[in-house]
């Protein structure tokens, strides 16, 4: 046990804490120079989740491997129950109350998808991967949560699940032509899919694809967030000196748009520094993946790294106007427990995979 604690990847843990502290600083500034209401809770959560993550890193990987499918099914049921509450209860929601905590199952499901896929490809012999029938199960693992999230409707998370699936399947060694085929099938099925939608659902999707039309809402945010980023310049206006954010121009400044506040106060140097930290964190995940001696650990690490990558790229693209505003937080920096929990737990799994990287056999197959 002690041995394991000594061998933990402290670079990874350090990066997580550093990024989260930058987030806390941003939240402190967003609250007008106050720990309340966001920064303090952000830090308390950080401590608690890191503790959970380290515990998770220390347990025997066999349990995680064996529980992978069950955990996936449980999280799927959790997601389904949110749907049902949405249908029968107080209207559409993305949240569920579990043991007194408000949890967003759509954040958790991304991690359990990685687990399930990692186990599936671990169990599969390499020769079997190319067989078409072995595509069925992974696609099912991706498709069920995808559909549930789409009907929430949370197209941002749905999109990130789809991207996560593509990246993990690519990493698992699926033949390239299948991706090309899948891409064409997707393109061709879009008009068909639109046919089945109700007019009001179409309206939602179109206003979603074209938020500029909704200028007072999302378009407004985008203009403001560009002003915040741009006015920061190279070095920024300085900590607590950002004007845009205080003036309530950014309604979601503490969640999805926190990056713009950092950009305003710390400038291009600040934003590049955060991007560099994330890039390092993702690189550590990839490094652990390459080092791992078993497929489960490899897919798990590369999946978690890819998930992190999707969050970061989608969020920054969104606030800088490269893609529509879809409501994806910046991991560890944005205020919000579910995403932070999911990210830190998943990194705990990566740490675990590294500690157990030399394991010869996971199961007696």
């Amino acid at each position: 046990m002690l041995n394991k604690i000594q061998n933990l990847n402290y670079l990874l843990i350090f990066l997580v804490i550093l990024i989260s502290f930058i987030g806390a600083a941003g939240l402190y500034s967003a609250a007008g120079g106050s720990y309340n209401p966001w920064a303090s809770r952000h830090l308390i959560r950080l401590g608690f989740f890191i503790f959970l993550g380290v515990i998770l890193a220390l347990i025997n990987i066999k349990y995680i491997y064996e529980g992978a499918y069950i955990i996936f099914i449980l999280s799927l049921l959790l997601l389904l129950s949110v749907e049902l509450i949405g249908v029968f209860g107080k209207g559409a929601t993305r949240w569920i109350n579990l043991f007194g905590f408000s949890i967003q199952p759509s954040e958790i499901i991304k991690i359990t998808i990685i687990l399930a896929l990692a186990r599936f490809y671990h169990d599969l012999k390499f020769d079997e991967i190319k067989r078409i029938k072995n595509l069925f199960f992974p696609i099912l693992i991706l498709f069920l949560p995808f559909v549930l999230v789409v009907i929430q409707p949370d197209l941002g998370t749905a999109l990130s699940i789809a991207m996560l699936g593509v990246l993990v399947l690519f990493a698992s060694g699926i033949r390239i032509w299948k991706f090309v085929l899948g891409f064409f099938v997707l393109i061709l099925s879009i008009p068909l899919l639109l046919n089945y939608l109700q007019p009001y659902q179409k309206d939602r999707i179109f206003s979603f694809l074209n938020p500029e039309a909704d200028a007072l809402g999302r378009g407004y945010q985008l203009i403001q967030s560009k002003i915040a980023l741009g006015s920061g310049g190279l070095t920024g206006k300085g900590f607590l000196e950002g004007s845009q954010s205080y003036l309530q121009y950014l309604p979601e400044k503490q969640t999805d748009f926190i990056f713009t506040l950092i950009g305003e106060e710390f400038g291009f140097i600040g934003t590049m520094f955060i991007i560099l930290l994330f890039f390092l964190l993702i690189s550590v995940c990839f490094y652990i993946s390459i080092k791992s001696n078993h497929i489960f650990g490899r897919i798990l690490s590369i999946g978690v790294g890819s998930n992190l990558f999707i969050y970061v790229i989608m969020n920054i693209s969104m606030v800088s106007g490269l893609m529509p505003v879809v409501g994806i937080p910046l991991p560890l920096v944005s205020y919000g427990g579910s995403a932070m929990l999911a990210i830190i737990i998943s990194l705990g799994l990566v740490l675990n995979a590294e500690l157990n990287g030399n394991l010869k056999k996971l199961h007696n197959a």
Partner: protein
Amino acid sequence: MFYSDDKKQYSVLNRRTFFLYLFKLSFFGIVGWRLYNIQIKDSQKYKTLSNNNQIDVEIIYPLRGMIYDTNKNILASNIKVFDVYIIPENTKNINKSLNELNQIINIDFTDRRKIIELSKKVKKFEKIKVLENINWSDLEKIESNKLNIEGIFISQDYMRIYRYNDIVSHLIGYTNKPNREEVELPFIANMPNLEIGKDGIEKSFNPKLIGKSGQREIEVNSYGRIIREISRKDSKKGNDIQITIDLRIQQYALNLLKEHKAGSAVLMDINNGNILCMVSTPSYNPNKIIQKPNKEYWDSILDNELSPLTYRCIQGLYAPGSTFKMVVAIAGIVHGVIDTNTNHFCNGKIGLGDRLYHCWKNNGHGLMNVSDAIKESCDVFFYEISKKIGIDKIAKVAEDFGLGKIYDVPLPNQKKGIIPSRDWKKKKYDESWYPGETLISAIGQGFVLTNPLQLAVMTSIIASDGKNIKPNIIKQNINIEFEKLEKYQNAIKIIKSSMFKVVNESKGTAYNSRSESAPFAGKTGTSQVRRITVAERESEDFRKKEVEWKKRDHALFVGYMPVEKPRYAVSVVIEHGGSGASTAAPIAKEIFQFTKKLET
């Protein structure tokens, strides 16, 4: 074997991992490049924007689509109106400006006081509304004096206008500000102040008529003053809609109906189901609803016990009376209960159980076959045959002829009416059907309720020899072919010759309304609004007496024209009109003659 396989797999995975890593690196590059552009290259632009000024987005409202009649007469359109504002900072003396304006257009003294009070509270550059929706001539007067009056600002707006006032009001509806629920409707999107259709075509076609909003980004300084316009996307006008109504017939029919307190008339083109005229009285003037203040007019409408807002053609439910007899006769023929030779003797009443059922003609009609029974509208004949047909078979035929249905036409709040059957009564009252109720239903009384549009559709189906005609209100350039209900062919032939006799042979109930210029066929109906007591019946002349308006029978007439190859079907209902023959049939005749004249 196993080992080498493993080795291959790991080398594939290593390669893939490397590619993924490059992929991600490139994305980080793109994001970094983007941030470089915003934060370094364009930084100066955003710094200026952030210093004092803020960007506001203003919604440009779209112009609502127009509504035309079948001949391209404009039924609903938008007129330019003008609002007059005063801007405090542009005048040295706001009091003087208002007084000068008052010399051109009268402004209420208290309003002037309010404006001056307000001008002290708001920012100096903010516009204060002085006059709303002023017309051209007033505008010209102001424009010619504008240089003399300081601080005046005129802005342009649009107002919905219905050129023909009350003629098509029920059908077209009117517009108004959305209520709290309607604001949530998807087509309103970001335009909370948009006027939307509240009734009729205006309501059904909101999504089409509204169009798309535009927007402009404006830069405002820290005090809220507009510095400049940054971008502008114009709004897109809503689509126009053309309906099948012929304004000339509509207007003509309305004038005929206005001689009575309340009623309706529907005229359909049998060839395509197009509704040419669908008018209901009393009517209302939508322009008076739109123009504020409208409280007085609203109150007068709501207080009117004849409820002018009700569109009687689709929302008025009436017992169809004898106009229902065609359906019963057809059911009798189709189900083999009667043929042209079947006779029944009418002595003025028949008994069933312990009750007597009366014919409208107290002395009786004598020996009647189906043709005579329709022509002279003998009730006893229909009592007799309905006993043998049964209510369920009658109901089935009634539904085939379009009764008891809500049509797929874009008119809100259609009332379905009732075509009774055993099942219906069981469901509705949890009671079984009494045989006497079949008799009452057979003469279109009792539970039976229809709206005038349904009666017109029924008549169209009969006139077209059983084509399954669907009403249509939106003008289309396609030819519609309706499916023919073959099983009714024979029966309809008999009924049509009887309907011809109703109008064109002596002793026919509508013989007095026959027309030489536009010969037509039809059927009268007189539907009781209350039960006739025995004492009244014995007094013999209960029909001739001047009874109170509200207690008088409804007068109905349905008919088609021309007799050979019919083109038009009509239904006329006059509330408490007395009898179909005396009140409704003459109106139908006038409508037919007018329509015929338009053709030539």
